């Protein structure tokens, strides 16, 4: 550091750094290069996630493209039969879609009311202790592998339902949907609760000061204030239900069936993909490509729900 010792108050002009640099400053320069390399590496790790999305879209679109060259889009959308592996092949996605919508509908009828009530209870009624126990428990419930839920639906719930309703077939969308609903409760409850807890205490205090009870405050003050978060929790629940695979593959049977009656067996988009993957389809055959077309439909559906959730969150967000 001779330069700075001789001229302590004058800044070193940057152009002169090249020649008379001290050892310590030179080390700094190499340090700078190393920093840059590390930053570049970390950036590529973050950018990798974009690559994954691009790869998903690329693979699905590429294989679906070949599929739609043989099967016109109108057949895909409006045909009422789904028999891609038969000689008389039909490719009506509506058949699979009906199974997906029916089972998701049943699941949401369970998950949304129960999830909302649990969220309101945990956020507005329950004491600290209850919440500390209930939240991790809900997480555990959400962490059970879906194949186990499928087993439960098939071997426990279906026989139980058959006692009440003897005509129920062994495979049906109803018990799969009900169990799926239980599986989704934690997602809905936990996200809704987070949204409610984010509502400032002053709003509640104002409401209590006006003489409102806990329930009135919860329903008429906290819930409206948290509505954007609650709505996006519902949307997440819907997209979980639509994308759920193993419960349906195990408990709903895998026969394509154009129906909105939950007491019938049916195939969904996801369980069809599993069914085909279990068989031995040659790479590049039309059956192989159908699963990519089905997957693309699924991806577009979940993407639409995700965008809707994103929009709802922005549109109805209350900022405090």
């Amino acid at each position, binding site marked *: 550091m001779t330069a700075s010792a001789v001229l302590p108050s004058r800044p070193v002009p940057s152009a002169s750094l090249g020649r008379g640099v001290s050892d310590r400053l030179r080390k700094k320069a190499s340090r700078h290069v190393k920093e840059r390399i590390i930053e570049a590496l970390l950036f590529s790790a973050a950018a990798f996630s*974009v690559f994954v999305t691009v790869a998903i879209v690329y*693979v699905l679109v590429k294989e679906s493209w070949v599929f739609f060259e043989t099967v016109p889009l109108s057949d895909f959308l409006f045909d009422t039969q789904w028999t891609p592996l038969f000689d008389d092949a039909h490719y009506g996605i509506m058949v699979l879609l009906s199974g997906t919508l029916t089972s998701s509908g049943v699941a949401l009828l369970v998950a949304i009311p129960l999830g909302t009530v649990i969220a309101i209870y945990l956020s507005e009624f329950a004491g600290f202790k209850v919440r500390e126990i209930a939240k991790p428990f809900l997480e555990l419930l959400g962490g059970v*592998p879906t194949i186990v839920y499928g087993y439960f639906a098939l071997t426990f719930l279906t026989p139980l339902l058959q006692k009440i309703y003897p005509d129920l077939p062994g495979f049906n969308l109803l018990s799969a949907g009900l169990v799926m609903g239980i599986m989704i409760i934690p997602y809905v409850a936990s996200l809704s609760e987070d949204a409610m807890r984010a509502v400032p205490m002053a709003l509640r205090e104002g409401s209590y000061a006006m003489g409102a*009870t806990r329930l009135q405050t919860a329903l008429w003050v906290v819930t409206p204030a948290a509505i954007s978060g609650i709505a996006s929790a519902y949307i997440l629940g819907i997209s979980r239900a639509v994308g759920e695979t193993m419960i349906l593959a195990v408990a709903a049977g895998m026969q394509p069936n154009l129906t909105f009656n939950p007491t019938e067996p049916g195939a969904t988009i996801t369980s069809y993909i599993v069914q085909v993957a279990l068989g031995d389809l040659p790479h590049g055959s039309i059956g192989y490509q159908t699963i990519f077309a089905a997957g693309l439909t699924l991806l577009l559906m979940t993407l639409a729900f995700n965008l809707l959730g994103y929009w709802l969150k922005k549109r109805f967000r209350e900022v405090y």
Partner: protein
Amino acid sequence: MVNAADPNAIRAVRAIIARAKRWDLFFALLGILSLMVGVLTFSVLFLDMAIQGVPRLDLEFFTSFPSRRAANAGILSAWVGTVLVMLVTALAAVPLGVAAGVYLEEYAPKNWITDIIEINISNLAGIPSIVYGLLALGLFVYYFGFGQSILSAGLTLALLILPVIIVATREAIRAIPQSIHEGSYACGATTWQTVRDHILPYSSAGILTGVIIGMARAIGETAPIITIGALTFIAFLPTAPFSGEPPAGLFDWIFAPFTVMPIQMFNWTSRPEAAFTVNAAAAGFVLVFMTLAMNGLAIYVRYRLRKNIKW
């Protein structure tokens, strides 16, 4: 105006209060009841599986290959496969996820590229797992030619849990006070030195929680692995990791065909014979036990973390 002295008015007000309190109580009960639906379902599920499956759990069940005869069948190839696949998943997902999380918290400038990456990650978290299976089928199995191997499955699950690890890393880093950064920079540390010596050590418990939760999810994932075409009847073990002839033989194991616990369970569940259902219950019990243990560990780590660290 209510006349305060009028006993009828007072009675009317008290009636209103009593009614409102009854509704409060009613709703609180409804909330507990709803929670109980979850608790009850889980207990029944767990007990039902335990009653059916636990008698089947002996040493032989863990050391036998699957068999055409239900009584002789075991889960040896399944649990070995699960362990190996998880090894690949962890090796791929943890460095990548942590690096991405660190970049987004410590390095990323505020611009549209960062925005795209962030939106993209939250979007990836919402994509159904079976779609990752299709990606893996097209990309890993056929395009890269990894085949239906441990490598393909491990990488697929790694992609699936990547958002979980990234989000956990970011949350853990965000919990570190700004003063730690400032102190480090004030001493002349570079960004990387700050990250290596301060940010990563202090956030490691939080990151670990996320990693465990991600791995617990990966262990139970069935759909993407079925989609890449994993076989369900595997009556042999892959070569032990790093045991082959070096250098090429060291990695023989990652290209081996395999099966995993959830697939073995699916296979047994979809058979009509009752004896196989018992096997499925036993395998399911082991599987739930593993995921519960991992989730419990994550909750414990987080609890310890909250208790011990006071900034």
